[in-house]
């Protein structure tokens, strides 16, 4: 695990993070919301609609506890949370665990 060993002013002034020199986005958060809101909205609605599609299909009860769908519901909780690095957390959730056979 990487350790955080730089100060907030260093991040502000030089873009230095625990990972080294970064390419801090030139865009502000409001600008990024304007740029990505419709894309985010679409991705969430597509996922919700796929769950609906599965739920009303024949034999839906057989797959409702499918580990893949269970993990996607857990992933939705990660998105809704406040912790950063949501993409990394979801990818780790969807990965074979160390002790599991591939």
């Amino acid at each position, binding site marked *: 695990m*990487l350790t955080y060993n730089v100060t907030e002013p260093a991040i502000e002034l030089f873009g230095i993070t625990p*990972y080294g*020199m970064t*390419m801090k986005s030139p865009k502000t958060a409001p600008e990024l919301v304007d740029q990505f809101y419709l894309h985010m909205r679409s991705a969430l609605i597509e996922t919700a609609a796929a769950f609906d599609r599965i739920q009303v299909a024949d034999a839906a009860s057989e797959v409702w506890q499918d580990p893949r769908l269970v993990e996607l519901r857990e992933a939705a909780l990660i998105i809704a949370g406040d912790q950063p690095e949501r*993409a*990394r957390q979801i990818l780790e959730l969807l990965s*074979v665990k*160390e002790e599991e056979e591939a």
Partner: protein
Amino acid sequence: MKIIEPHVHMIARTVQDYERMARMHTVAICEPAFWAGYDRTSPQAFHDYFTHISEFEPTRAAQYLIDHYCWICINPKEAEDVGFSREVISFMPEFLNKPNVLGVGEIGLNKNTRNEMIIFEEQVELALQMDQLIWIHTPHLQDKLKGSKMMLDYLVGHGGVDPARVCFDHTEEHTLPMLHEKGFWCAMTVYPVTKNSPERVIDLVEKFGLDRMIVDASGDWGPSDPATLHDTLFQMRLRGHSDKSVEQLFYNNPCRFLGQLGKFKPQPTD
């Protein structure tokens, strides 16, 4: 601005892709050896394949003013049969000595099995013996994290591998940090569904910087498109980054990694 495509399987693409890449200012491409969608029935079939990507594809590319380079290996998906794999490895040096062959790749893991790991290690040794660059395929989807850790542990523990001469491909948010931290080059593949999106690639660049970062489209016989590389370049510009940074990521960085043996002709602009 010139563009380099560090990973594309042109044996699986049409001439229209060469034309499109040329129109989008792609000046050089690299073709790692891979699984062609079916298992070859003999080692000789690999000899034919290596001949195709090292001799015929460069002639197709040249018609569009694109320099074509390739990598040679037995891919991880066909490495389960150790004896078969060793027969293929036995004639790899003949190809690695060619002027347009950049090194050993794309080696790696598929389902993270013991036999895949044996052949991965033997090909790393061949690369070291012949002073070659190494291009690594990290596994798909749920197997990526475990397989990446297995290969990283081996290479770091080996003691004789210079990470500056090794590129891990298909990295994502959960694998890139540990690989980049150890000094390896990290390539991010942009796919329509199963790997990175252009947006996520630029997120990673903003977080980890430009050093030792590469982007590719890995066009092959499945859902993929060489133009996703250029979509990512456009995304970087949309996000407000300078032309100099864009050029570093899409041209100068691949020039630096691929140019270490002196075979790769394009030169960095800075």
